[in-house]
């Protein structure tokens, strides 16, 4: 399916394909210049924070002991939430680069190559 459309795929938008799909054009277009999962530390760091955020390791003696008006163990979860927010925000701002936007606001211009489906 779609192989006969391969040669003109780069000038088409999805609505032009009807039932034909060019998978090569799809997979050519999908990869940004940089993305969080390409950094090998990102996913393990997220998993580690999540594992620590779940209070499975606490001794039963901790119980409902309070600190600053909340149970002590909830502060660990809140701190992990902050760490997850920092790492996520860092990933969004520093580990993700599309590479197609450097020319600016392409999609907003219906006449632009990006908006019409052509490669920039």
């Amino acid at each position, binding site marked *: 399916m779609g192989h006969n459309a391969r040669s003109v795929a780069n000038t088409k938008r999805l609505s032009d394909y009807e039932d034909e799909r060019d998978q090569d054009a799809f997979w050519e277009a999908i990869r940004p210049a940089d993305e969080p999962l390409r950094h090998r530390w990102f996913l393990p760091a997220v998993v580690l924070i999540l594992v620590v955020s779940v209070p499975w390791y606490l001794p039963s003696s901790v119980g*409902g002991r309070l600190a600053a008006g909340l149970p002590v163990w909830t502060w660990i979860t809140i701190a992990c939430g902050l760490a997850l927010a920092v790492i996520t925000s860092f990933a969004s701002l520093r580990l993700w680069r599309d590479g197609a936007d450097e020319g600016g606001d392409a999609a907003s211009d219906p006449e632009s190559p990006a908006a019409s489906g052509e490669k920039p």
Partner: protein
Amino acid sequence: MNTSVPEVTFGPGALAVLGGYLVVMLGLGLLGRLKQRERSLRDFYLGGSTFGFAVLFLTLFATQYSGNTLLGFAGRSYVQGATYIVSVTFMILVITVFMIYAPRLFRLARRFGYITPTDFVYHRFGSHPLRVLCVVLLCWGLANYVLEQLVAMGHGVEAISGGRMSFMQGVLLLVGVMLIYESLGGMRAVAWTDAVQGTLLLCGCAVILYTLVTADGGLAAASEGIRATSPERLEAPDARGLRTWVSTLLMLGLGVALYPHAVQRIFAAKNEISLRRSLGAMAFMPLGTTLLAFLIGFIALSRFPGLSQLESDKVTIYVLGGLIDRSPVMYWLIVMVFAAVVAAIMSTADSALLSIGSMFTKDIYKSYFRREASAREMLIVGKTFAWGIMAILILMAWVSLETESSIWVLIELKLEFMVQLSPVFMLGVYWRRMPASAVLTGMVLGTLLTLVIWCGAAFDVWATRSPWGVGAGVWGLLLNYGVCVGWTVLRPARRPASVSA
């Protein structure tokens, strides 16, 4: 200790604020109509993909945080106690999950001009049954999501009018205004109203947070109160509770990240920088909003112990209503907070409704009934469908008044199904070898398993819909992922395996 809930009396000032707010919303709808560049689906459903950082961030924020956050989450925190702190983690995790698939999806959407999330599904897998199943599951989830907002609208207006307006009058008023501005200006009007609603919500949350930690002894007094009446709700979860915690993280973290109206905001971004900055800021928002809802429920537990499941949805109203007579300043602050609650409810409902209309029009009507339909015809069909769905949901909201069904039950029903789309996006953007047959089979089996577990519990065939502390939707999801991976790995390769693009 005060164990009776307060009578909340806002007075005419609050009604004037609500009326003024609704007039502003209608004005923005009209402005959105005037600013339309063309009568196209992209312009109506994605605002022409022109949203910069400020509007994109506020519309993401107002859409993500709904009436459910401020009313339902607080109610859940009341029922569950301190262990509901998990809500803060899963709302941040939603943005983390975006980091996995959004970079690729955004790129594809720009390149191929996607309007709906299922545009990606069909483009990637080329399967009609898969596209239809995805639309059905997403619309099912979204319809429940809107229904939940309608219930919250009714409670919100009933409270802010001091009982002068009934639940159903409140629903009809807000839905009427919402449908008018949405039909006039589409996504552009929705995003602009979201910007106003998001600003109100941010300010409202700051006010509540300040009020909660300063009034009546703050958190320390609340914890001591809970220790006296229900100390078990201060304790860390036991083994089963830990499994439920992980199950909740999986279901909410993965499920909420697939809300179609949130995915469509990825498509609506003006450029990559606006999107990255918006998501970067969104990662911190749960620490102000979800944490706040948790604290409201926590404080309510100390002040109003023994509320029923249905009453627990109103603990935000009870906690803030108890502060309203303290001073004129406090009165207007609380009025602003309730305006923010109404804003949050409307902004979520309008976005979800717009998304339902876009999927029905583009993925069902255009694809299977009228392939030659013009943009104008599709816009009319989309709006008509949205109005029809809303009429049915209003009827269902009225029925919900007669039952003891709380908001939380509705949330679970929607996410249990929507989360089954997770492999489509999470694996679909990375694993070229994964075929449509694997995804479709996984999704069908996962959804069926979820339904069987859920219905078995509902009809008392077995005791719980969370066997071993793990939710029905998560059991379905595990089966779903297992089938997708197993099927793909075991099937004979038709071409050299290229695992990633």
